[in-house]
């Protein structure tokens, strides 16, 4: 483990055939298992939650639209779940609760400020939440905007929100929502949960992807409390904020893609922010101790002669701090040109595995979309391909979810029949969890 508490490992086939230009590597970033090792690079480094009481800030955003009354258990379980999450907020952390309909308003503290967590503020929050009633529409952009304004008033380094909804974003335009999300990008991260089956997977996935959080379905409201407590627990574990992957490439080279591929597929390619004449930064959000994530980096280089070696990319992990960017670790992606076909044609097993996992996610999403559009032929083909990929890669969770949507005829060949009756919750669970990958170890 390096001094910074992070390690960066690169796994690739560095050999290219004569004239080859595509370099592909799996970059594994791992944080130190013990919290002490992850304090960041010294006093000038990123503020960690353990360093000061104002390290972390949490906002819980609860849908209070009219539909939350149907069934009545939804709003009741949402209240209980919010209370459960509040109970987990660590002493000293700033927190607040926001309610959302076609408007958004502060529930606790009622004046729109943030409270410092202690026994009495947590009790007061629980009491305020117990009074929540459902009624009105859904304008998620409004909710995010209020959260953004609330966060912006405090200097916390680790800002995180939990957003719960049960419906579609009906009372503002998609453009209004997209604009609100853009405003929040980089300011806070957001885990999104949809309760029931009347919400839109794509809508929440867009929000969670932009705000570097997770998205999932909680089909039965009774599951909310445990899920909320777990999300808050995980948020409380984060210690280093604003971590980015910095990818340096040689002149005349192009970054083709940067994707997180484990624990879930997130395409970061479009999130590039220039950080130098030959480098760009891709956000990874906040990190807790003992976390490990894999990234797939693809670079196109100008070929050199056989026998030559080139640094195709340097992938560094950087944290923003008052003194600039601190490098927490780095790995090198190399290219060596060879006329030995045994070397250049060797496929790196982890690159192959994650290429398959990304294809799996895309096949599921495309297949479900085609099914929705009534294009059964495309849906059958795509979901069949997904079944075969899930089987080959040992992604059992996804295979189980797929089996609720299709009847598998031949798992190897990917021959399937669409089920006539599919529970909405099963289809949405498959959609939201399509990006979850199985880890490929070295």
């Amino acid at each position, binding site marked *: 483990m390096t001094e910074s508490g992070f390690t960066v490992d690169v796994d690739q086939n560095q050999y290219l055939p004569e004239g080859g230009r595509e370099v592909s590597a799996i970059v594994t970033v791992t944080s130190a298992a013990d919290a002490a090792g992850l304090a960041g690079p010294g006093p000038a480094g990123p503020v960690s939650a353990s360093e000061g009481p104002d390290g972390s800030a949490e906002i819980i955003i609860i849908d209070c639209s009219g539909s939350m009354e149907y069934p009545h258990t939804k709003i009741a379980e949402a209240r209980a779940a919010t209370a459960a999450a509040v109970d987990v907020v660590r002493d000293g952390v700033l927190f607040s609760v926001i309610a959302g309909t076609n408007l958004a308003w502060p529930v606790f503290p009622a004046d729109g400020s943030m409270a410092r967590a202690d026994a009495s503020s947590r009790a007061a929050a629980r009491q305020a939440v117990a009074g929540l009633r459902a009624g009105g529409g859904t304008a998620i952009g409004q909710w995010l905007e209020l959260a953004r304004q609330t966060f912006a008033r405090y200097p916390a380094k680790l800002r995180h929100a939990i957003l719960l909804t049960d419906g579609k974003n009906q009372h503002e335009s998609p453009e209004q929502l997209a604009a609100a999300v853009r405003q929040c990008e980089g300011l806070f991260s957001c885990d999104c949960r949809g309760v029931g089956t009347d919400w839109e997977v794509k809508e929440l996935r867009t929000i969670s992807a932009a705000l570097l959080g997770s998205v999932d379905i909680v089909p039965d409201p009774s599951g909310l409390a445990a899920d909320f407590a777990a999300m808050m627990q995980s948020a409380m574990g984060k210690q280093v904020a604003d971590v980015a992957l910095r990818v340096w*490439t*040689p*002149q*005349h*080279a192009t970054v083709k893609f940067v994707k997180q591929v484990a624990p879930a597929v997130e395409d970061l390619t479009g999130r590039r922010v220039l950080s130098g004449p*030959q480098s760009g930064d891709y956000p990874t959000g906040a990190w807790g101790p003992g976390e490990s994530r894999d990234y797939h980096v693809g670079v196109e*280089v*100008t070929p*050199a*002669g*056989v*026998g*030559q*070696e*080139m*640094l*195709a990319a*340097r992938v560094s992990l950087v944290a923003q701090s008052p003194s600039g960017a601190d490098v927490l670790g780095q790995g*090198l992606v190399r290219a*060596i040109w*060879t*006329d030995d076909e045994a070397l250049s044609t060797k496929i790196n097993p982890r690159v192959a595995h994650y290429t398959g996992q990304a294809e799996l996610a895309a096949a599921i999403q495309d297949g479900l979309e085609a099914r929705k559009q009534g294009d059964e032929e495309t849906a059958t083909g795509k979901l069949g391909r997904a079944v075969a990929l899930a089987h080959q890669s040992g992604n059992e969770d996804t295979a189980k979810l797929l089996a609720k949507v299709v009847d598998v005829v031949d798992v190897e060949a990917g021959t399937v029949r669409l089920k006539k009756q599919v529970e909405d919750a099963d289809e949405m669970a498959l959609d939201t969890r399509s990006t979850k990958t199985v880890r490929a170890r070295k």
Partner: protein
Amino acid sequence: MTGGNGVCPSCGAPVRAGDSFCESCGTELAPPMVSSAPPGYQAECPVCSVDPEAPPAVITAEGYCGSCGRKVPTGRDHSELDLGLLAGMTDRGVRHTRNEDAMALATADAPGGPVAIAVVCDGVSTSPQPDDASLAAAQASVRVLLTSARRGDDPAEASLAAVRAAHQALTGMGSPDGAPSATYISAVIGSDAVTVCWLGDSRAYWLSAGPGATRLTTDDSLAEELVARGVLSEAEAMASPQAHVITRWLGADLSEPGPHVTRFEPPGPGVVLVCSDGLWNYRPEAAGLAALALPAALTDPLGAAAELVKFALDAGGIDNITVVLAPFPLAPFPAEPPHPKTVPVRRVAPLPRRTPQ
């Protein structure tokens, strides 16, 4: 003692022939020379430094050009060492990205007359840091051989002690990722005999005119074992994919290296050749090598080494090439050994420019 008097290259004080150290400042007068980058060597990008349009490039800590990303030469790509009594040349070759061969040469004005010492190590490409391993092994062993020669120790025993020192140097480099490894060969050439010690498939030859030319070593390789057992002919073995699988080597993963030692008394004048497989791949028979090296090697060992390296490069240069030549009988010990020459940068054509879309 042989040779004339000279001056210390460091302080200019007069020194006596045969002194190992300057009596005035303590500088070692005839230190061993290794094929590492020379002191003060400044790496530069072989592409950007000759491209007038390229921006000034910074070389990264890992040895890459900060502009075009090209791996820059380490100073070991090509080295030439000329110690008068013997000379050597090592070259990256054509296909490899770095030179994982290392050589170390030394001369001593020993009680029994001049002694020439050569060590050649070829890093095992499938082990981590093979280039560091070969250099560390060569450096550690040549020091032991030189000290022993100055004392007049038995060359066979000194050779075994030198292997142990090289082995110890590699043991310190081992990590959970693996054991840096290298082949090893040393030759100690005295006034009446050559003592050769080896592990792996780097070789020593006795080259002389006529039928006397002979190989002094037997490879520790699968190919050689198959030939020895009559399973394959030498030609078949060379063509087999296992020809270069070595069965003994120097590395941290071995508790006992188990080297071979042999002593050869030259019947007359000739040349001792010590080389890595980058040379003998293309001309394994002693007579063939003698035809290439002689008679130039008798009087101009460095020039002849250059010819042999060029021969291997022209033949394909598939591996790193190291050639050391020592004419026998040894020339008188020189008062001031010449300094090593290192030619670190091989310039290559600039990368084709891509027009912006």
